C-alpha cells in the first residue's frame, strides 16, 4: 500500500486505469510533456505514449468538444481543464452537448468522459484561479459532479468516474492537493458516485461539507465538541446526484443541520441541501437549517481573500448558534 497525497492519488488512479483499459486517453493544456501544471499527469506520457497522453491546444472548448466525440466513438477521455475558472469556453460544450447527447439520441450515443478541474480558493492566486463553481455543473441535468476530500477517496472516486456511463465533472480541491498523505491501496477499488460518507457520527447536529472544507470543519467540530456537544460530520463527496438518504436520515436523528461550502452563498449548493431537508425532515428539525458560505462577492485577490473563505472560527460560531438555538 502506497502513502500518497491527493494529487499523487489522482496520478496513481489515472495510471492504474490506463494500464487496465486501453480506451482511456488523457489530455489537456500542458498535460502531456510537462505532466500538467499541478503534475497530476506526471510520467504518464512517458509510460503510455503521446497517442494516449498529450498536450492539447490552448482551447477549453476544443478539449471538451473533442472529448465528447472520442467518448461517443468508444474512447474514455479523461481531460483536464487547468483551473475551473478557465472552463467557460468549454462550458458551452459541457452544457449543450456532453450533458445532452444521451437524451438527444435517445440513448444511442453516450458521453462517458471525465472532465477534471482543480478548483477552490485559499491558495493566494491570481484572478480566476480560486472559484468554487460546483453548482454551475450540478444544476445541469445529465452531469454528475464529484469532489474528493482525501487521497483514498480521490482514487476510488476517479476510477468510478472513468467507468461511469455518463459525463462526470471531477473537481479537485487544489488547496489540499499536497496537504496530507494517506494510505492508498494499489489494487482496484471504487467509491460509488452518489454516496456520501459519514466521517464521524454524532447525535446533536448534522454538518455536511466537502472538498477542502472537510478539514476546516473537522477542526471547528473538535473545538465545539469540547463544549459538550456531539456532532455528526458528512462528507458529501458527490454534489450531484446528492445522497439524500444519508443526509436526511442523519438530520432525522440529530434535528439540526449546518452546511459549509466554499461557493458563494446565494443559489449555492447549501440552498439545495436545505431545501431537501425542509421537504424530507421538516418535522424533525429543532433549529433552522443553516449555511456557512462566503458572501456574494467575487473571490478577492490574495490580500483580500481572507474576507472570502469561512475559517474555522466562523464555522465554529455557526455550529454553536444552531446547537444553542
Amino acid at each position: 500500500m502506497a502513502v500518497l497525497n491527493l494529487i499523487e492519488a489522482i496520478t496513481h488512479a489515472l495510471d492504474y486505469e490506463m494500464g487496465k483499459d486501453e480506451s482511456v486517453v488523457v489530455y489537456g493544456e500542458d498535460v502531456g510533456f510537462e505532466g500538467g501544471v499541478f503534475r497530476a499527469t506526471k510520467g504518464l506520457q512517458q509510460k503510455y505514449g503521446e497517442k494516449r497522453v498529450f498536450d492539447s491546444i490552448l482551447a477549453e472548448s476544443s478539449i471538451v468538444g473533442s472529448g465528447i466525440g472520442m467518448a461517443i466513438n468508444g474512447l474514455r477521455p479523461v481531460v483536464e481543464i487547468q483551473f475551473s475558472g478557465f472552463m467557460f469556453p468549454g462550458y458551452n460544450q459541457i452544457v449543450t452537448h456532453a450533458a445532452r447527447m444521451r437524451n438527444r439520441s435517445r440513448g444511442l450515443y453516450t458521453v462517458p468522459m471525465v472532465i477534471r478541474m482543480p478548483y477552490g480558493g485559499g491558495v493566494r492566486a491570481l484572478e480566476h484561479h480560486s472559484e468554487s463553481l460546483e453548482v454551475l455543473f450540478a444544476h445541469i441535468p445529465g452531469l454528475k459532479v464529484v469532489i474528493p476530500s482525501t487521497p483514498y477517496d480521490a482514487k476510488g472516486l476517479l476510477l468510478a468516474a472513468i467507468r461511469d456511463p455518463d459525463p462526470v465533472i471531477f473537481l479537485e480541491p487544489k488547496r489540499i492537493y499536497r496537504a496530507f498523505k494517506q494510505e492508498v491501496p494499489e489494487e482496484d477499488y471504487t467509491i460509488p458516485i452518489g454516496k456520501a460518507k459519514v466521517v464521524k457520527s454524532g447525535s446533536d447536529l448534522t454538518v455536511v461539507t466537502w472538498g477542502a472544507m472537510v478539514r476546516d470543519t473537522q477542526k471547528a467540530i473538535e473545538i465545539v465538541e469540547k463544549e459538550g456537544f456531539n456532532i455528526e460530520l458528512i462528507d458529501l463527496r458527490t454534489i450531484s446526484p446528492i445522497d439524500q438518504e444519508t443526509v436526511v436520515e442523519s438530520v432525522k436523528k440529530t434535528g439540526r443541520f449546518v452546511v459549509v461550502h466554499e461557493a458563494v452563498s446565494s443559489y449555492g449548493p447549501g440552498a439545495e441541501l436545505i431545501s431537501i431537508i425542509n421537504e424530507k425532515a421538516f418535522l424533525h428539525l429543532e433549529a433552522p437549517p443553516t449555511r456557512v458560505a462566503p458572501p456574494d462577492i467575487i473571490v478577492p485577490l490574495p490580500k483580500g481573500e481572507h474576507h472570502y473563505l469561512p475559517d474555522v472560527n466562523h464555522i465554529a460560531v455557526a455550529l454553536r448558534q444552531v446547537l444553542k438555538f
Partner: protein
Amino acid sequence: MFLKPYVPQSEEMVQIMDPNGNIVKPEWMPNLSNEEIIEMYETMVFSRIIDEKILQYQRQGRILTYAPNLGQEAAQVGSGFAIKQTDWVASAFRELGVWLRKKAPLYNILLYWYGNEEGMHMPEEVRILPVSVPIASQLQHATGLAYASKYRNEPDVTLGYVGDGGTSQGDFHEALNFASVNQTPNVFIVQNNQFAISTRRAVQTKVKTIAEKALAYGMPGIQVDGNDIFAMYAVTKEAVDQARNGGGPTLIEAYTYRLGAHTTADDPTVYRDQEEVEEWLKKDPIDRLKKYMLKAGIWDEEKEEALRKEKSEIVKSEFTKVENSEPVALEAVFDYIYADKTSIQKEQYYKLKALQEEVE
C-alpha cells in the same frame, strides 16, 4: 510600406536592426529622434528592472505570483510607442512595456501584483483594460472598443495583445473575424514567445507563421522580429495609421522568446534546455538597442549606470509604498460587485463584520 507587399506565409520576418545593433534595412528605418530612441530604451530597461526586482521580492516571499516579461520588452515597448496616449489597449497579463508607455503608475502595477485589485483602478488617461487572465478573451473587447470609436467618428485605434497559445482559442478567431467584417480600427499583436506555459508553438498550430492566420479573415498579417524594437515600432505604426484612416485591422506576429518562466509558479527547466535560452539571450532586445545607441554615439556606460540606478530606486520606493499600503478592508471586497450593494450583501457584510470584530 510593409503591409501591402508582405506575404505572411513567407517566414521572412521584418527586421530593421540585427542582433548586433546594425541597421540592415536603412530604407525602413523609422523616423525617430535620438530623444525618442533613448526614451524607448529607457522604457525597456525600466520594464526589465521592474521584472528583476519583482522576481527578487517574490523569492523573498514579499509578492505572490508574477508573470515576467523578460525578453519581450521590444515587442511591447516598440508596439506601444506606435500608438497615441488616447488610443485604447486590451491587454492580457504580459504587457508591462505597454503599460509603462501608456503612463500607468508603477504603484498601481505593483499593487495589483501584490494581490490587491485596487491597483487596476488606473488613471483614466491610461486607457488600458485591466489585466485579463482568461486567454484571448480580451481581443473581443478590443473589437468592441474599436467599433465604438468608429461609431462616434473618433480617431482612436485599439491594440489587442495575445500570446501564441491564445491563437488557439475561439475568441481569437472570432475577434479577428469581427474586426475584419466590420473594418474596425484594430491592430492585433501576437507576442509569439514560443511557449504557452510548457506547450511549444509547434505543438499549438501547424501553420508556418502565426501571421498567416490573418489571411483567413481577409486582413493583412505580418511577422516581425519581436526583439527588434525598430521593426516592431515601424510595422505597428503603419498598421495603426492604416486603421486610423479607415483601412481596417491588421494582425502582427511579434516573433520573440520568453526568457523567464510563464509565471513564478512555473519551472521552465522541466520543459526546455538552458542552451536554447542562451541562444535567445544573444538576441536580447535591450542589448540590441544599446549596441545601436553606443555605435550612434548617443549613449554611454555612465548614462547606463545612472539610468539603472534611477529606475531601481523608483521600483524600491514604490514597492515600499505598496508594502505599507492599507490592508484590504472588508468594505473593499463588497464595493465593486454592483453599483450598489444588494440587501443580501448588506446583511452578509454586517454579519461578517460582527464576526471579525468578535474574533479580534
